[in-house]
């Protein structure tokens, strides 16, 4: 019974955060909405026995990724001038209709599978020990590939940051400082 209660509360919170993400005009509010949703998803991980994954979710997503997002929002300024005029006729109703249609299709397609699945077996508790046992055993090669991927991503980011060349740098920093007051409000 208590699980139903926790699920209901955090489901509402997660959906509210997601809608805030999509609907908020200010990108900072969008980021806060995403943060709320990510914390709720961490709670759902705990309810599903994925304890280690819940910790990783809070550390990586709510910690690192959202901090990075907020840093970039601060860096490039809150875009007050976001154009809300739709250029395609009936853009917004069409998109909302498409989203609702996709949801209905997913629910219809998944329903058979969700119903015939067995009940809670409850054996898959994801402690650090269990996860690392699987990760360093069966999943060793994919794990090493992620090391390669992260290295390539880090090198690529540094290469992108250096790409514009030195001669433009001063001018661009000036342009960045001009926009800074917009960040405050």
């Amino acid at each position: 019974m208590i699980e139903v209660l926790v699920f209901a509360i955090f489901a509402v919170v997660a959906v509210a955060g997601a809608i805030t993400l999509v609907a908020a005009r200010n990108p900072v509010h969008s980021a806060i909405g995403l943060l709320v949703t990510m914390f709720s998803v961490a709670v759902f991980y705990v309810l599903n026995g994925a304890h280690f994954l819940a910790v990783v979710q809070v550390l990586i997503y709510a910690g690192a990724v959202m901090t990075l997002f907020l840093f970039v929002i601060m860096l490039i300024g809150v875009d007050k001038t976001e154009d809300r005029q739709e250029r395609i006729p009936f853009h917004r109703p069409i998109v909302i209709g498409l989203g609702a249609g996709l949801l209905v299709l997913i629910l219809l397609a998944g329903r058979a599978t969700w119903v015939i699945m067995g009940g809670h077996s409850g054996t898959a508790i994801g402690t650090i020990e269990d996860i690392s046992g699987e990760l360093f055993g069966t999943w060793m090669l994919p794990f090493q590939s992620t090391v390669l991927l992260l290295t390539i991503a880090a090198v690529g980011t540094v290469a992108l940051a250096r790409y514009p060349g030195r001669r433009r740098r001063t001018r661009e920093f000036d342009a960045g400082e001009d926009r800074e007051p917009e960040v405050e409000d």
Partner: protein
Amino acid sequence: MEVTGGWYMALGAVLFCIGAAGMLLRRNALVMFMSIELMLNAVNLSFVAAGNELGVLDGQLAALFVMVVAAAEVTVGLAIIVMVFRKRATASVDELSGMGG
């Protein structure tokens, strides 16, 4: 009443569709990027719920790998957004029509 894996998967579907709608609705590149993160989170939730339902750890490991790839993707994507902003002084994807889009 008991919360089964299907409930979590239905919630994941809802979150995924909100993220997809946000991807189509918004112009700000940062908000579009955050919508992608929302969709990845929704899929992760489905993975974990399915793994728990079947009693195996593979769902959690798949979610873990999705997280790693998402972290790498965020790093590169945000670097690209910052670089585009440096060149064009805008984060709106409508302005980026250099390739005829």
